[in-house]
């Protein structure tokens, strides 16, 4: 194998794929990037056995072939070479990779391409496209609620699925849901073409993080392919393929409260900073905070026998009967960061029932918080 390309192109391609390679790795082949040179283009592939990222870029290919070389080392070399340098990579006579750029010369060990993991992906049943920004919104508004509890592994990801059109509407929805049992986040958008009958899939947390990094700040289209076992995202020349979680996501619809008759409207920024202040002295573990609603007055209170008390009064828009309800301060803050409008809407029913939190300017997102006993 022998090819040469611009340093910037090499750096860009390796930059995308090397993220998935773990720095501390005792399995040599998983530290490597697979390079396949053919017909004027190079395909770089890296994997951690759960996620595979590949990127193809054009290059001057003299001899076609496949090899694998240490990903981080190669990336570091590309990073340190001067801008504009022409980098040539070739397999030397001793079976090692020779990297040449200007006066620099590197020799790296190789492993055979046949040893490299293969993620078969030929049975995708659904293909559709989304804007990168739309996809980023779906992920950002839900990923904070992903569970980290290992025993309920089916909650360790975002449930990505299509919802059939409601009566009277022509289009279905594409919906992302994440929950850890204490809170739930749901974000949806009008379903793009090709999502009819899309199987509900659970995308693992690490895949979400890698994908988010890949599409960050982009406005391009992301092509998504889904099968029973895998999901693939194609952005420009980069392709991310991931295994899916093998489990059944719970019937989340039952926990979304529909009968909350007590509506509360608060200025989101004021509420968030007040919660943050009061929670300073809440107990490390429960982080519980009590909300007392009396007329248009909301009192946030924390009573911690070890660290003292805190309270703060806020003017709110609330017309229903008086109510006392407790929440986890961290969960309240997480939700307020997802609200884009000036105000946040709570819909409550009683101290033992979950609260529904919505954004008046975004009817595609909703959040459910379980109350705490205070």
């Amino acid at each position, binding site marked *: 194998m022998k090819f040469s390309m611009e340093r910037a192109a090499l750096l860009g391609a390796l930059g995308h794929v090397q993220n998935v390679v773990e720095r*501390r790795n*005792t*399995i*040599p*082949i*998983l530290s490597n990037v697979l390079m396949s040179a053919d017909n004027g283009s190079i395909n770089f592939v890296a*994997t951690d*056995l*759960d996620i595979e990222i590949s990127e193809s870029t054009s290059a001057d290919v003299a001899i076609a072939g496949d090899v694998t070389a240490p990903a981080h080392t190669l990336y570091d070399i590309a990073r340190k070479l001067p801008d504009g340098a022409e980098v040539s990579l070739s397999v030397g006579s*001793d*079976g*090692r990779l020779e990297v040449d750029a200007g006066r620099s010369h590197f020799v790296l*060990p*190789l*492993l*055979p391409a*046949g*040893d*490299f*993991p*293969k*993620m*078969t992906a030929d*049975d995708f049943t659904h293909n559709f496209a989304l804007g990168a920004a739309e996809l980023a919104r779906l992920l950002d508004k839900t990923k904070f609620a992903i569970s980290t509890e*290992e025993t309920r*592994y*089916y909650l*360790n990801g975002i449930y990505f699925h299509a919802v059939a059109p409601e009566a009277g509407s022509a289009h279905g929805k594409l919906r992302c849901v994440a929950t850890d049992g204490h809170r739930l986040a749901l974000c949806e958008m009008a379903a793009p073409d090709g999502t009819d009958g899309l199987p509900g899939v659970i995308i*693992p947390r690490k895949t979400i993080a890698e994908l988010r990094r890949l599409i960050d700040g982009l406005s391009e289209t992301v092509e998504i392919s889904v099968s*029973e*076992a*895998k999901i693939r995202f194609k952005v420009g020349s980069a392709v991310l393929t991931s*295994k*899916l*979680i*093998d*489990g059944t996501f719970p019937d989340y619809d039952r926990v979304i409260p529909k009968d909350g008759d007590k509506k509360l409207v608060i200025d989101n920024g004021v509420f968030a900073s007040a919660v943050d202040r009061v929670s300073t002295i809440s107990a490390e573990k429960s982080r519980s905070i009590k909300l007392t609603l009396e007329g248009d007055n909301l009192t946030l209170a924390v009573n911690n026998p070890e660290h003292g008390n805190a309270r703060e009064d806020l003017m709110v828009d609330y017309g229903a009967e008086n109510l006392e309800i407790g929440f986890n301060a961290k969960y309240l803050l997480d939700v307020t960061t997802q609200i884009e409008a000036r105000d946040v809407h709570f819909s409550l029913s009683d101290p033992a029932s979950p609260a529904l939190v919505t954004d008046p300017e975004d009817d595609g997102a909703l959040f459910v918080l379980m109350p705490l006993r205070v």
Partner: protein
Amino acid sequence: MAKPIEQTYPEADKANDCPRPRDVYSLIGHSSGETRFANMHANDSLHHAWLISGPSGIGKATLAYRMIRTVLGGQPQTAGRLDVAASDPVSKRIQSLGHGDFLLIRRPYDLKSKKLRAEIPIAEARKIGDFFSRKASEGGWRVCLIDNIDDMNRSATNALLKILEEPPKQALLILLSSAPGRLLPTIRSRCMALPLRPVPETVLRDWLSTQVNAPDTDIDAAVKLAGGAPGKALAYVQNADTVLRPLARFIGGFPAQNARQYHSISDTLSLAKNAPSHDLFWEGLQDILHAQAVYAATGEWGGAFEPLALRRDVDEWVAVRAELNQMRWAGAGLNMNKKNVLLQALMRIGAA
């Protein structure tokens, strides 16, 4: 040609002087167990967990890798066997540990302390749950090999139990154990047991003479000492200079006591570079004492070399063997000077 500068780490599942089990393709003996597995796999009635047991070096991991290659889609060359070729693409990915549907759990290598851990901690056992919670990478079975389960600590074993109780579909767990009796009964009862029997001596001798170029006396002694475990026989032959020959000289020296020789043997074996030979020598010594006790009782000699030219009855031999065993483990447990422990042991055998 320059040596490849591939970075390698110590591997807990590799025995000294033996190839890594995942690099071994030929299986010596154990064909009934293999056929049983092959038939169940062919009939689509594979049990989800297998416990392969037998002394170390007998071929547990070699058999397990043959199972794994077949289950993960390698094509066996013979019907009813599991002989997937080394050139099969599946074999290559398993060999490099780069198969997305294969997880190997063994004592991990700690990159910080640059040491192999002494046990399999719970973090490793959790990887199994994580692995089985993902769908298959290549669309078929997912296989986890635990090499070996005797190294798992208690909490890791409990974490494993959860997975054994509720295995997902198309998941296969293979557990290797050289002391299955010590396992939790709840683990044993959930596994299909596959105890491996010693390989017959004739088969072992034929195989060993194709593997190494060694004099017949070495091969004969190694086969006797190995007790039907090919891996052990190979290790004996490859350590002929530090184990087999000193052992032969020692045995042949009786009834005379040769203190100079005892010193030289224990000096050589206590060197750090000879650590594997040291263990092997002890095992050989104990096997010979065992054979000696049997010989004293029945008059039949089944051990390596010739019987010792010492007159004792069964009870005395049994007592010597027990005493040596105690010395060895006390020495290891208390971190005593290896040389002194071994020297004492050698002296003790000849002493009345």
